Structure formats: structure tokens, C-alpha cells
């Protein structure tokens, strides 16, 4: 967060200087967008003998990383009030509950069950 605004920046350059954390995040986001696209062009699993679902995992890790940057810096979650952490923490928990349990339930079936797909 822009902390100190008692002495405002005089010109645009100085302003960007002052807000350089945003600019760094901005650059990082762009770079990682590029990386995501680049990685997607190769088949890590087959061409590079990585584990099953390697592309998916890596792609999602990068997306999560980018999202974290946006949340922490652009949305100022890095210095937010307790209450908001609490609310978002719960939300995150329920969100994973919704995802995890539905998928788990989808994968756990009794013996002899078949799907005609």
C-alpha cells in the first residue's frame, strides 16, 4: 500500500517511483502470463517424461501465484484488517470444501458401479 502521502510526488516519474511495488507486481504478472502460455505449448507429461497431469499442475500453480500477487498487493490483503482475513479465511475453507468434497464424492463409488460414458 502506498504508505506515505504527506509529501506527494511532484511528477509522474516520481509517482511511479513511489508506487514501484505495483509496477513490480505488474511486470511479474505479465511475465508469468507469458510463461503460462509458453509452458502450455509443450507436453510436459509425454515429451519431458514428467508426472501425469504435469501441465495442469504447473499451470494452476502459476495461476495461483499470480492470483496471490493480485490479492496481496493490488487488493492490499498484505496489510488488511483482522476481520477481512477472518471472512476470507472462512470463505476459502468453504470453497475448498465445496470443490474437494464434490470431487471426492464423484470419485468414490461402491463396488460394481459402472458408468456408460
Amino acid at each position: 500500500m502506498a504508505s506515505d502521502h504527506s509529501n506527494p510526488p511532484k511528477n509522474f516519474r516520481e509517482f511511479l517511483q513511489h508506487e514501484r511495488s505495483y509496477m513490480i507486481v505488474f511486470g511479474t504478472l505479465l511475465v508469468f502470463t507469458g510463461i503460462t502460455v509458453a509452458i502450455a505449448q509443450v507436453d510436459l507429461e509425454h515429451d519431458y517424461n514428467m508426472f501425469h497431469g504435469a501441465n495442469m499442475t504447473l499451470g494452476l500453480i502459476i495461476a495461483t501465484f499470480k492470483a496471490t500477487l493480485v490479492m496481496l498487493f493490488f487488493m492490499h490483503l498484505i496489510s488488511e484488517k483482522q476481520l477481512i482475513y477472518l471472512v476470507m479465511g472462512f470463505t476459502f475453507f468453504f470453497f475448498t470444501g465445496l470443490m474437494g468434497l464434490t470431487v471426492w464424492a464423484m470419485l468414490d463409488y461402491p463396488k460394481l458401479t459402472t458408468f456408460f460414458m
Partner: protein
Amino acid sequence: MRDFLIDTMGLPTLASEHGKNVDYFIVYLHWLMLALFVGWGSYFVWTLIKFRAGRNPKANYHGVQNHASTWLELAVAAIEIVLLLGFAIPLWAKVVETQVPDENDPNVTVIRVTAEQFLWNSRYAGADGVFGKRDYKLVGQDNKFGYDPADTHGRDDIVPPQNTIHAPLGKPVIIKLTSLDVIHGFALHSMRVQQDCIPGMSVPVHFTAKQPGTYAITCAQLCGSGHYRMRANLTVTSEENFNNWILENTPIIEDAPAAGGAAAPAADAFE
């Protein structure tokens, strides 16, 4: 005593082997609930009488001081844990995992039951003991079940009249349930069996009948305007009778593919 407890509960006639466990579970649970209710209820009524304004004009700010209720709550929790870990989970595991009869055991009758608005289709594997191949890609106007007409295993499959299912007495039966159109529910209360029939998946239920007779099968899930009359009968007869019935219903196999031949060209495109 046991029987008395069960009878008071008004459960339908029991005709399957595993069903008695379901009954015991339900019945004991209900007596327990009744005990809790009566316990709390008497305390409640007593309190209302004892502390009515006319008799007790001045309330006591402090009220109950002891922590009996905590113990009570812990007791309820403990009972639930016992019920859960000791009975509910293992018993359910038996149903879906550990005591599922083996499909390939010749002793086991496997029936495919496919629900449809508003009737039940059953199918038996026939003499070769193997069902015809089934693939959703084959579903068509003239082949709504999607059985492969080219598959020889399917030709001797037995397709009894709709809404009739027969099962042999005293032998394990597996019914594999599915549906063509919407979700139906296969409720066979006399056997203490119930399972939804979901299009796109086939889920098994199993039981061993211990009493001959005809039992109603109810559709348990709302499936449209005919839901209420979507009834089938399960007939449990001795093994001998059952085998005769199977023979009666066995199709006469001709050389050419039987019914549904017209759909054949569609098949190869998907293989």
C-alpha cells in the same frame, strides 16, 4: 422382546436376510430417541409447573449452577459416536463394500433393471451368463437401451415383460440399477433395499430373499406425472420355479441378429 420392539415400529414385512440388521438399527435408535425425548420432556414439564409465575413470583438470577447439562451433552455425543463408529459406518460398509456378492459367482443372480418413465425393465444374462454389450453411443430411436445388436452375448439375454422381476429364494441377488431418462428410485422395502436409478450410471444393490412371495417395488424419486403409479412386482420363488421361469422367457435365437438389427450400421463407426 426384540420382536415386540420391532412390531411396534410398524415396519413392513421383512423378507431379506440382511434386513433384520436394518430393522434392529432403526428400532433401537428410535427407542433411544424416545428415551431422550421423554427424559428432556419430563424435565421440561416439571420446570414449567415448578417455576410458573404464580408459584414462584421471584426469578432466581443464577438459575442452574451445576454442570449436569455438560455431562448430558457429552453423553449424547458419546452415544452418537458409538452408533456411528460401532454400527452405522461398518454396517453401511457391508452394504456397499465388504459383503457385496461376487458378480461372477454362478450362485449369484445378476439382474439389470432399467427404469423408464413410468415402468421398470429387467434383463437377465441368459444361458451364457454374460450380458450384452451396452454403449450409450448406440442409443437410438430403435435402440433405446443401447445394447449392441452385434454382440452375441446379448442375444440370449432374457427380457421378461415390463414391471416383472423374479428372484430365486435364498440365493444372493444383485440388481444393477440405471435409468433411461430421469432419476427414479428403486425402493424395495420388504428387502430393505433402496437406491436411486440415475441415467448414465449403473449402481448395484443386493439382497438374499428369505421368504417367497410377491413384493411391491416403489418408485421413490419424483419422475414426472406417472411417478405415483410406477410400480413393479418382485416375485421370489424357489430356485426351481425361478429356473423354469427363466427358461420360459429365454428368447429363441435365430441365426441373424435379433431385434434392433436395423441399427447395426451405426455401430462400427464408433468402435
